C-alpha cells in the first residue's frame, strides 16, 4: 500500500506525525492480535505499547519493501507469545467491546455482537498455537507461508493448525447456539 510506504518513509525520516498516524491506523488491529494471544486487554495494550516504543528506537528496522501491517502484527505476536510463556492467565471477554458496522437495525447489531462474542469466546478456547495461526491469518492478513516463516515451522503445519482451529470453532459455536 502506497500510503503505508509514505508513512514508513516519513517515520524513518523522523516524522512525529507519521508515527502518530501509524499508531492510530493499526492500534485496533494490533490490540486484537495481542488480546487474542494473551487473553487480557491490559497486557495486550502493554505489548502494543512496547512494540511501538521499540520501533521508535530502531526506525531502520521497518522494511520499506514489506507490508507495515504484517511487520507490526508479527512483532506484536512475537512479543505477546514471549509474555504468554512467562504467565498463564485465563482469557476474559468481559472487558472487550465488539464493534459492529453502523447503519444497521438494533436487532441486527445485537445479533451480530452476540455472534462476535461467541466467536471470540471460542477463539479463547483454542490451543495457543491454533489461536495464533487463526489470528495471524484472519486478523493480521498474513498468508500461511508468511506465518510459517514467522513461526519457523512448515506451511503444512500452519495449514493443519488453522483447519483444526476452524473445525473446533465450528463445533464450539454450534454447541453455544443450540443452548
Amino acid at each position, binding site marked *: 500500500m502506497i500510503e503505508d510506504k509514505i508513512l514508513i518513509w516519513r517515520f524513518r525520516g523522523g516524522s512525529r506525525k507519521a508515527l502518530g498516524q501509524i499508531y492510530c491506523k493499526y492500534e*485496533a*488491529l494490533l490490540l486484537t492480535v495481542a488480546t487474542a494471544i494473551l487473553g487480557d486487554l491490559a497486557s495486550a495494550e502493554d505489548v502494543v*505499547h512496547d512494540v511501538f516504543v521499540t520501533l521508535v528506537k530502531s526506525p531502520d528496522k521497518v522494511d520499506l519493501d514489506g507490508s507495515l501491517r504484517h511487520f507490526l502484527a508479527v512483532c506484536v505476536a512475537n512479543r505477546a507469545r514471549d509474555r504468554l510463556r512467562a504467565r498463564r492467565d485465563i482469557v476474559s471477554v468481559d472487558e472487550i467491546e465488539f464493534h459492529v458496522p453502523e447503519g444497521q437495525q438494533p436487532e441486527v447489531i445485537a445479533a451480530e455482537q452476540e455472534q462476535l462474542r461467541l466467536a471470540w469466546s471460542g477463539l479463547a478456547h483454542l490451543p495457543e498455537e491454533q489461536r495464533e495461526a487463526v489470528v495471524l491469518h484472519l486478523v493480521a492478513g498474513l498468508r500461511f507461508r508468511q506465518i510459517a516463516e514467522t513461526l519457523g515451522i512448515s506451511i503444512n503445519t500452519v495449514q493443519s493448525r488453522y483447519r483444526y482451529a476452524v473445525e473446533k470453532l465450528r463445533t464450539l459455536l454450534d454447541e453455544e447456539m443450540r443452548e
Partner: protein
Amino acid sequence: MKPDRIEQLIRTIRVRSTPGKRQERLDDILAAHDRWRQSHTTSGRGFPRWVAKVAIAASVLIVVTYQAVMYRSPDRIVPRQPQTRAVPSSAEITTAGSLQMAFRQGGLEGVERQLDRAFELIGAWPTVLHEQGLL
C-alpha cells in the same frame, strides 16, 4: 455455523482501548520518539542539527559567490553560439540561377534582358516613372 461465517466474524473483530487510555499510550510513544530523536541527533552517531544548518548556509554562500564572480568577470568564458546560416528558399535559388545564367550568356546586358522578361512576365512595370525612382 459455516466455516466461512466463522472466518468472516473473526476478520471483523477489533479490540479497542478506551479513548483516554489510547491517547495516554500514544502520548507516551510520541514522548519516547522525541527523546530518542533528541539524543540521536546530538550523539556521536549523527550530526547535531546546528551543524547541518551551518553546512547548508555555507553551501548556499559558496554557490552565490561563485555565480557573482563568474557573472562580473570580464574574461568569463562565454560559450560560442553555433553559427546559423539561413537556408535560401527555392524561389531565391531559381532567381539567382537564372540571373547567373543570363550574365554568362550576355554579360550585364544579358542580365538586363532577363530582368525585362521577368518584369513583363509578372507585369510589375510601374505605370508612371519618376526621376527620383530611377535614381
